[in-house]
């Protein structure tokens, strides 16, 4: 007599084996189950897969025991069927299968230590046999024709899309044994430049996926058999290789860039799937930025960052961005290894980098590797484009504000190449055409340019010289002119010792300066600020088994001219002031190990030792003990001669991250990092301004110390087409500086008296949902995060909001970003993004009075109110040129609409007093209308 459960199992097996069955149900509820199984299997074989999922979810929890049995080595060399029968004995479990199915499958070496479940998944991978567990004792093997159908369908879809499949064979079929695991190594290169493509995703159809390392290599464990491998790299044609894998071996794959303008000019850095990528690391997809709606036709890499979860900004006119509740000065931006201080043109409206000149950009918001240091919140590592080693070409773009042009090609074929890019605005015409008041006498203009020369001495040695410069001028009708400029250059030498070791030496120089000039005779002046920072970095990478080591040293020398002002006319009332120069040296040693314990677990641990000296000549003022720092409490001063250090700081910065793959397509990631930041942005404003002061740490300004903890769950489905993640973080930063009410920071020789010291904390959760393939692609990100500060002092007037935590200027708890791209046809696509964020905190007045004829509004505690919420919709139509490979000019158009429903998002609230003495609050919207623009990009 069968128990009902056995009956059910039998029934299921019968239907799977192709028989129709009739079973008398014992109860209505069970009837339901039965009919599903039976009707289902008869009507729709394909769908049985889903049923498995349904059932496994119901029952797997009960039959885990036998599947959790760990293989001890006794299985080696034994046919699977026989091994299972042995396990079955005395265990109380039952395996149901037909002998022919498993007769060719044998466990070989390599399965030891795995659970039976894992081992079965591996060994049956690529076959059409699957299994499922029933109740607490049965494991049923089924030959699943639907998988074969799926495979056929996959091949069919490849054919209908006109995709080509290459066939590769590794090893000899006759030497292979079914069930054996082989190791497939591979190297992926660009088919044209033969550069290795790090970050390529390799997906085994219906199996796991891996990502190539920065040297373009990957490793994959596969069971013997035929596999379809899909290679994907943004802007490159998808490549499908049918691999007949019979023995361990190597495969070399070349991928071709897609010959389309918008894609051609951009390449991503590392585009790994969210499951396998490093903690907190995001590779910016330049091609996607190019297809998103633009602001006045200018493609902007920093706008792309701001749609990522955990990244926000305070408004349209803000150069900076805020990462996980951190300040805008806590973001390290590297351009070919040299840091950049001002990343925008026109007060933050446009990025300082021409996106055509960027090869790749990698963004870290957590789990920052030890090779990076110096900024607490994030790292943006930008690499500029290298010229083509084969032939010359040109690309360009024309927009309403600026145009850009770049050339690249070989100097000596296959040996050396050059890339030159230039961008310039002609935005002055907009200002000049204004009839409003006398504004047509103002001027706004900018330009930037970059050049990169690369020379390959051999396959192993390469030298790269890169330069970048940007310049902005903003003139006011009142005869005041602001100008600011970045200049960076780097010389990089790459040497490959062997396949396992390579090193990079970088010599860099960077400079940032600004200049404010006023030509009114009575107040004529010239104010200057400059910072120059030569740097050196030596970086050594070594692959040692499962360990990937990265170690090196990094030094930066800061030379700052904190400010000089000089009168420039004989009747000028300006007093000449020169704040003495400052010098500091920041050195660091770093060591990092990326350790792949097994296929599931990867650690990345390391540390950075930083040592900082504030160097003489300098004069340090001493203040009376027990008194607040102010000009009136100066008691003495100490002078330090040239080269002598006035203050040293030492930082131990541990870094740790872990990626644990709980299943082939889901992972848990944990990250921790501590970072010392030795340079501070001295600013009293909400956003970065071009005339802010960057101040190296000194006797009074201790380095900021940031600790960040993060944990997240990442999941992908449908061959990586859908990705979901949720990540939480907590960040605490010590020694942040805040501005003392009413004190002046420009040309202040005792800057320490103008600033208050405090702490900052931020915490939040980020949700992200992405669709990576198909005609409709896009992402939806939601972040809940808080960013709070505390400035507490024993002295009255030196605390902010009575020493309680208060929201930072960029505390925006709820942020939603939705972006999408819909391909209407191969040439037309429709893209858009929608942004919503909580209004940022501001300080509002609560009462009004007039004293001495001066209207005065009294303000609440700092940041206790909020401006209205921000939201905006942008749309764009992208029209690409035809897709013929050979044509003279390849062009594409982007028609953008910024702020489609013309929302007047409030940027700030301010007060105006009218002639009757009434002070009225006003809200200011930077952009209160829909802004259409059209731009053209071309390639010659």
């Amino acid at each position, binding site marked *: 007599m069968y128990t009902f459960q056995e009956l059910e199992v039998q029934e299921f097996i019968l239907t799977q084996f192709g028989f129709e069955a009739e079973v008398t149900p014992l109860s209505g509820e069970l009837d339901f189950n039965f009919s599903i199984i039976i009707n289902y299997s008869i009507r729709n074989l394909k769908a049985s897969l889903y049923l498995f999922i349904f059932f496994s979810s119901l029952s797997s929890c009960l039959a885990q025991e036998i599947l959790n049995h760990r293989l001890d080595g006794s299985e080696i060399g034994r046919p699977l069927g026989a091994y299972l029968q042995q396990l079955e004995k005395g265990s109380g479990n039952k395996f149901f299968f037909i002998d022919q199915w498993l007769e060719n499958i044998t466990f070989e070496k390599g399965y030891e230590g795995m659970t039976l479940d894992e081992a079965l998944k591996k060994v049956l991978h690529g076959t059409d046999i699957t299994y499922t567990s029933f109740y607490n004792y049965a494991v049923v093997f089924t030959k699943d024709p639907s998988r074969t159908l799926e495979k056929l369908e996959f091949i069919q879809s490849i054919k209908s899309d006109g995709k080509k499949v290459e066939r590769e064979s590794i090893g000899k079929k006759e030497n292979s044994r079914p069930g054996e695991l082989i190791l497939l190594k591979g190297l992926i290169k660009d088919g044209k430049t033969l550069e290795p493509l790090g970050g390529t995703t390799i997906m085994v159809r219906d199996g796991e996926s891996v990502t190539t390392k920065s040297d373009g290599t990957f490793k994959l464990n596969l069971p013997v058999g035929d596999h379809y491998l899909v290679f994907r790299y943004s802007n490159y044609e998808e490549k499908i290789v049918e691999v007949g894998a019979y023995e361990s071996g190597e495969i070399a794959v070349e991928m071709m860039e897609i010959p389309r303008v918008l894609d051609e000019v951009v390449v991503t850095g590392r585009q790994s799937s969210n499951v396998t990528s490093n903690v907190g690391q995001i590779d910016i997809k330049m091609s996607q930025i190019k297809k998103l709606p633009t602001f006045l036709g200018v493609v902007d890499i920093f706008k792309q960052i701001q749609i990522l979860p955990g990244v926000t900004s305070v408004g349209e006119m803000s150069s900076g961005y805020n990462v996980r509740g951190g300040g805008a000065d806590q973001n390290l931006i590297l351009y070919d290894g040299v840091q950049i201080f001002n990343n925008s043109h026109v007060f933050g409206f446009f990025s300082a980098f021409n996106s055509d000149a960027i090869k790749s950009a990698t963004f870290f918001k957590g789990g920052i590797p030890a090779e990076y240091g110096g900024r607490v919140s994030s790292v943006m590592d930008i690499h500029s484009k290298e010229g083509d080693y084969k032939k010359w070409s040109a690309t360009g773009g024309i927009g309403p504000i600026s145009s850009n042009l770049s050339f690249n090609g070989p100097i000596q074929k296959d040996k050396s190449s050059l890339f030159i890019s230039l961008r310039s605005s002609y935005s002055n015409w907009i200002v000049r055409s204004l009839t409003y008041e006398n504004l047509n006498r103002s001027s706004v203009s900018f330009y930037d340019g970059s050049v990169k020369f690369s020379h390959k001495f051999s396959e192993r040695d390469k030298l790269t010289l890169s330069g970048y410069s940007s310049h902005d001028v903003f003139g006011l009708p009142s005869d005041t002119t602001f100008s600011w400029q970045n200049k960076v250059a780097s010389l990089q030498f790459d040497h490959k010792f062997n396949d396992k070791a390579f090193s990079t030496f970088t010599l860099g120089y960077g400079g940032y300066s600004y200049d404010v000039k006023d030509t009114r005779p009575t107040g004529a002046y010239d104010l200057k600020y400059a910072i120059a920072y030569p740097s050196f970095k030596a970086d050594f990478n070594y692959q040692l088994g499962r360990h990937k080591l990265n170690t090196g040293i990094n030094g930066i020398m800061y030379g700052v001219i904190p400010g000089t002002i000089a009168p420039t006319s004989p009747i000028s009332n300006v007093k000449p002031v020169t704040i003495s120069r400052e010098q500091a040296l920041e050195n660091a040693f770093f060591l990092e190990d990326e350790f792949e314990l097994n296929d599931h677990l990867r650690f990345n641990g390391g540390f950075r030792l930083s040592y900082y000296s504030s160097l003489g000549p300098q004069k340090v003022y001493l203040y009376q003990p027990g008194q607040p720092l102010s000009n009136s409490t100066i008691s003495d001063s100490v002078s330090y001669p040239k080269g002598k250090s006035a203050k040293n700081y030492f930082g131990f910065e541990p870094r740790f991250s872990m990626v644990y793959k709980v299943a082939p397509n889901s992972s848990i990631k944990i990250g921790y990092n501590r970072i010392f930041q030795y340079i501070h942005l001295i600013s009293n*404003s*909400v956003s970065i301004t071009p005339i802010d002061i960057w101040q190296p740490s000194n006797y009074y300004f201790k380095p900021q110390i940031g600790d960040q903890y993060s944990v997240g769950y990442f999941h992908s489905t449908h061959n990586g087409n859908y990705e979901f993640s949720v990540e939480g973080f907590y960040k605490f930063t010590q020694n942040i500086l805040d501005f003392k009410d009413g004190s002046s920071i420009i040309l202040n020789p005792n800057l320490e008296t103008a600033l208050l010291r405090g702490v900052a904390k931020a915490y939040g959760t980020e949700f992200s949902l992405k669709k990576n393939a198909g005609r409709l692609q896009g992402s939806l990100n939601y972040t809940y995060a808080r960013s709070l500060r505390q400035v507490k002092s024993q002295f009255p007037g030196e605390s902010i909001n009575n020493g309680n935590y208060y929201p930072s200027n960029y505390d925006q708890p709820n942020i939603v970003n939705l972006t999408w791209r819909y391909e209407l046809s191969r040439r037309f696509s429709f893209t858009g993004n929608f942004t919503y964020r909580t209004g940022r905190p501001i300080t509002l007045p609560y009462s009004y009075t007039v004293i001495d004829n001066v209207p005065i509004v009294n303000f609440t505690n700092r940041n206790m109110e909020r401006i209205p919420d921000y939201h905006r919709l942008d749309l764009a139509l992208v029209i690409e040129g035809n897709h013929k490979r050979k044509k003279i000019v390849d062009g594409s158009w982007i028609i953008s609409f910024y702020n489609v429903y013309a929302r007047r998002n409030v940027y700030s609230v301010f007060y105006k007093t009218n002639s009757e003495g009434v002070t009225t609050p006003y809200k200011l919207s930077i952009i209160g*209308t829909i802004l259409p623009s059209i731009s053209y990009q071309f390639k010659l």
Partner: protein
Amino acid sequence: MRFSKGIVFIVMFLTCCISPYQVNTNFQQQLVVEGMITDQPGPYLIKLSKTQAVNDQLGSTNAISGANIILRDDRGNLEPLVESSPGNYYTISIQGIVGRSYSISIVLNDGASYESAFETLLPVGDFSLSNEFLQVEPPNANNQIVSSNGFNVYLTSEVLPEQEGRVWWRWTGTFEILTYPKLMTKRVTKRNGSEIVIPSPPWCSGYFVALGLDSSVVGPYWDCTCCTCWVTQQNTVPLISDLQFVNNGKIRNEKIAFVEANVRTFYDKYYLEVEQLSISASVYDFWKNIKTQEQNSSNLFQIPPPKAVGNIVASSKNALPVIGYFAASSIRTHAIIMERGDIPYKLNSIDTLIIDCTQAYPTSTNLRPVFW
């Protein structure tokens, strides 16, 4: 520095929309104190009031009556003040002397008490004034009443070592206007319900409406007392020195005022009187914070507004928060006159203001100033 000022222009350039904003913060009442003792002859005034809601600035001022204010110096002398009109308290006999320190204590009739720190009456240096005509736009029919052309008034000042670079300025400008009250009319409703406009000159115009059917205006029968008035203007932003511009004990060519040149301000001439005051660090900081608020209010980079508190503190538990200052200052005064003829182009005649001139401006008066 003028950096932030420039930003205002960017705002105007880039924006389409500046619109009133409804502030919904909870109103909190505060005590407002303003007053000073100077080296000039007394009596000296201390004013007490309460703050108003931001949305209700035109409401009547909340003068505080019935307070006891005592002024004392560092030698132990003290003098109670006398309330002469609501909220205005005057000294009787005390005379400010350079070098001495003064403080006030206030007790309101609810028992709440407040006091100021001791403020030393510092000496002040002398100064001179100059002006320069600034023509921003060519004169035309549209810019005769509101113009961006006018006189910049500059000041060159000596700063004594005791002042430590801190100087406070206040100015009062006076100009004459001519109005035509005899042309005033009013609307009346006739018995049949229709409205008509009839002449209605005030008595002060010297004219009146003749009795009779034609309602014609007759006169003048006496001198018009509301046709010629003098309007005073004062600085509405705090004027204090910028320590960066104090160079070897001198402040040179500090722009102190802009006098708009139009048919009213230069109907005759413009008289500008400037006071230069010494100021203590705490009162200087008070004004500096207010100045910063003012400058930052339209700054694009949104500097958080500093809190302006002043040098008065609450000394009892039931006290309100307090804002304001008590200063001890030396004062120097100079005046400068800008004539109609100094304007480098021909100004039209004054526009026809059909109003009683004392009503034309909130600060207009028909009392001829002594210096006119």
